[in-house]
């Protein structure tokens, strides 16, 4: 097993910053280190030097780098109680009241678990046609992966259990087909979703967004970067827009909390204060 030291990691930050102008230095150290170690093993490299060499000499490799350091969602319908809340307490009324198209942004998609879940919930509410969904990813490979629909069998199994707890109105098996080694999710569910590659600074983000679904992403950043990204999300939301974070991502300790109203803390739901 390759174990990277702090010096190796700084050297990788530096290389990526110099060549690609991506700054990872405010990513949470432990998980970032593990992503790098995993990337090195999965790509048959032996150490930090070989990774740096590849980053310097093989620009096409960088997209794969971005893909592999990103953490995919664990499953679909993670936290079924959140999705029940979304279905029962939030989306139908919010979309109904909305003036203009209801714009939803799902940043940092990696494997599409959250995106497919959201799309299924909207289809089951018969509201998919009333929204515009933008999914952004940091790698092109994520877009290909999500559009292909391929999904791990184990994850499908867990998602199926979650879906039962969500009490959806179909059989979960109607959303995928099984192959020998993989499941393939029904890509028809996401066919009207707009995909775009973003950089990690979220430049060129959408405006007037009514909902940002950003669960379990902040955990990969240091508090200073968390604050910066939340400020950015705040600017992208329309007044009264919603932000959904992971259930263990507390923004109570950050300054930005003053700009949001807590709607459902147990499920990580916040609302941009009107007039703030």
């Amino acid at each position, binding site marked *: 097993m390759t174990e990277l030291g702090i010096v190796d990691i700084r050297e990788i930050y530096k290389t990526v910053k110099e060549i690609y102008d991506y700054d990872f230095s405010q990513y*949470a*150290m*432990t*998980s970032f280190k*593990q*992503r790098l170690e995993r990337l090195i093993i999965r790509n048959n490299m032996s150490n930090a030097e070989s990774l740096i060499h590849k980053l310097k000499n093989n620009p096409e490799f960088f997209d794969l780098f971005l893909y592999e350091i990103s*953490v*995919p*969602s*664990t499953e679909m319908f*993670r*936290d*079924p*109680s959140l999705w029940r809340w979304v279905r029962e307490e939030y989306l139908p009324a919010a979309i109904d009241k909305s003036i203009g198209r209801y714009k939803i942004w799902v940043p940092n998609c990696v494997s599409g678990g959250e995106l497919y879940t959201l799309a299924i919930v909207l289809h089951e509410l018969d509201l998919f046609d009333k929204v515009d969904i933008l999914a952004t990813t940091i790698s092109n490979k994520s877009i290909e992966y999500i559009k292909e629909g391929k999904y791990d069998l184990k994850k499908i199994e*867990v998602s199926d*259990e*979650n879906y039962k*707890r969500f009490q959806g109105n179909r059989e979960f098996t109607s959303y995928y087909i099984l192959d020998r080694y993989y499941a393939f999710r029904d890509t028809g569910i996401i066919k009207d979703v707009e995909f775009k590659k973003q950089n990690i600074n979220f430049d060129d983000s959408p405006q007037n967004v009514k909902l940002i679904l950003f669960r*379990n992403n*902040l*955990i*990969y950043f*240091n*508090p200073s970067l*968390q604050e910066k990204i939340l400020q950015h999300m705040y600017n992208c939301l329309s007044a009264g827009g919603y932000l959904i974070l*992971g*259930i*263990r*991502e*507390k923004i109570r*300790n950050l300054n930005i909390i003053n700009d949001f109203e807590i709607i459902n803390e147990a499920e990580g739901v916040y609302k941009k204060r009107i007039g703030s």
Partner: protein
Amino acid sequence: MDYKAVIIGGSAGSFQVVTRILNSLPKNFPLPVLLCLHRLKHVRSGFVEALSLKSRIPVEEPYDKDQLKPAHAYLAPANYHMYIELANRIALSTEEAVNHSRPSIDLSFITAANAYRQKLIGIILSGANKDGSYGLKKVHDNGGTTIVQDPNECEVRTMTQSALQLTKVSNVYTTDQIIKYLSKL
């Protein structure tokens, strides 16, 4: 010895042991206690409440980047890995399961060993798989103190035996001995 934290890993058969340990710790226990126990991933509530019942130190499920405090116990939340970052903070992660486990005892132990080095006490309790063995080895390799519950006392002994095979641990203790050891810190 000047320790910074205690980390405890367990699975099947560890609940009673953890409860007894927590109930025995004094209100002013000088260290944070990190608990990484295998649990059902979809059951979010109930566990921390059960562990809290008779504990004199607060038991909580941390939020991401929470600061660790002495005389507090931190239970790895369902379906998250719990890491220890430098600067005494918790970091949560939804990375891939390790040994089919999330939370992974190995990952909690490895990251705590990196953060605290020789100032860490790692304890492996009863359990039905091998998670934690590699992590305990890392605690040992970094100069920390390693304790394994006496397999003869364990409801399920796979986890402790596997840990003992991989590492020459500091001590093999019964629950009573673990309690006595911690009470002297």
